[in-house]
């Protein structure tokens, strides 16, 4: 769990004042977040790890420029997103990815998968490794602008304001993109889920409340 805001402020002040070893403690709660936000952009574990290390080093070197008007986590994610984008551009993957960027917020109708014999995912299916693998692939398939928002909101569980701030977009756009991202995932995964989840006739109870 992230340290309290007060504790973070104190740590940051002390690190800037010279107690640099405390930086390890400061970033520990965010190791996972930084790595995963980059991984979902780069889709390469090796490079994501290297990039995550760079992000943390950059954060250390530029800690003085952290103003404290945003949360430290948001600041860190912003650096991570920039690092990820930069590497994408370098890898020329951006050339391919920009096709998706072009679609931006075209008012497409993203409708969920509607299957008449659809059944919700039973808990056994959720426990399956293949299911998680399938979800990872589905997330990677999303166009980057949607993937970014989904990763920050639903994987890292940042709030709307933090996500907007980290991506440099407004809250309305965060909401629109998140909705589309979720609907795309639902659509991608629906046929597969149907296959792994044998239909339970008449079973429609909610699993998670």
């Amino acid at each position, binding site marked *: 769990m992230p340290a309290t805001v007060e504790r973070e402020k104190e740590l940051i002040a002390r690190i800037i004042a010279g107690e640099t070893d405390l930086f390890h403690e400061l970033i520990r709660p965010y190791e996972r977040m930084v790595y995963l936000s980059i991984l979902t952009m780069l889709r390469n574990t090796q490079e994501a790890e290297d990039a995550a290390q760079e992000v943390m080093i950059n954060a250390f070197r530029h800690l003085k420029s952290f103003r404290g008007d945003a949360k430290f986590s948001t600041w860190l994610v912003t650096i991570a997103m920039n690092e990820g984008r930069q590497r994408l551009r370098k890898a020329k993957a951006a050339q391919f990815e920009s096709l998706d960027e072009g679609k931006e917020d075209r008012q497409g109708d993203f409708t969920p998968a509607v299957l008449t014999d659809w059944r*919700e995912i039973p808990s056994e299916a*959720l426990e399956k490794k293949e299911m998680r693998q399938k979800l990872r692939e589905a997330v990677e398939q999303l166009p980057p602008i949607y993937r970014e928002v989904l990763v920050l909101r639903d994987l890292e569980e940042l709030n709307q304001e933090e996500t907007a701030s980290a991506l440099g977009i407004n809250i309305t756009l965060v909401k629109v993109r998140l909705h589309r991202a979720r609907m795309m995932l639902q659509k991608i995964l629906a046929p597969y889920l149907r296959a792994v989840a044998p239909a339970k006739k008449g079973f429609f109870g909610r699993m998670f409340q």
Partner: protein
Amino acid sequence: MTLECKNVWEHISEYLDQQLEPKLLADIEKHLENCEVCSAILDSTRNILVLTADNRTFELPVGYSERLHARLEKAIRESAKPNNDSA
């Protein structure tokens, strides 16, 4: 007012994030009670989100943290050298 399925789908995200106005929320819940298709879409989306947030779905590489802190340590030591540019 009766909602069509399509109207419900448009608000699934807000529904899951509990951001709906009370009136619309009530209309949607009423629709969900009577519509298996929309209920299933809602449940599947919710389940996908539960799975997305599950730490086992996106895992860290073994040794990631150790390598990260080792490299950081090096960077921190280097920054402490006398001829760094932070004078």
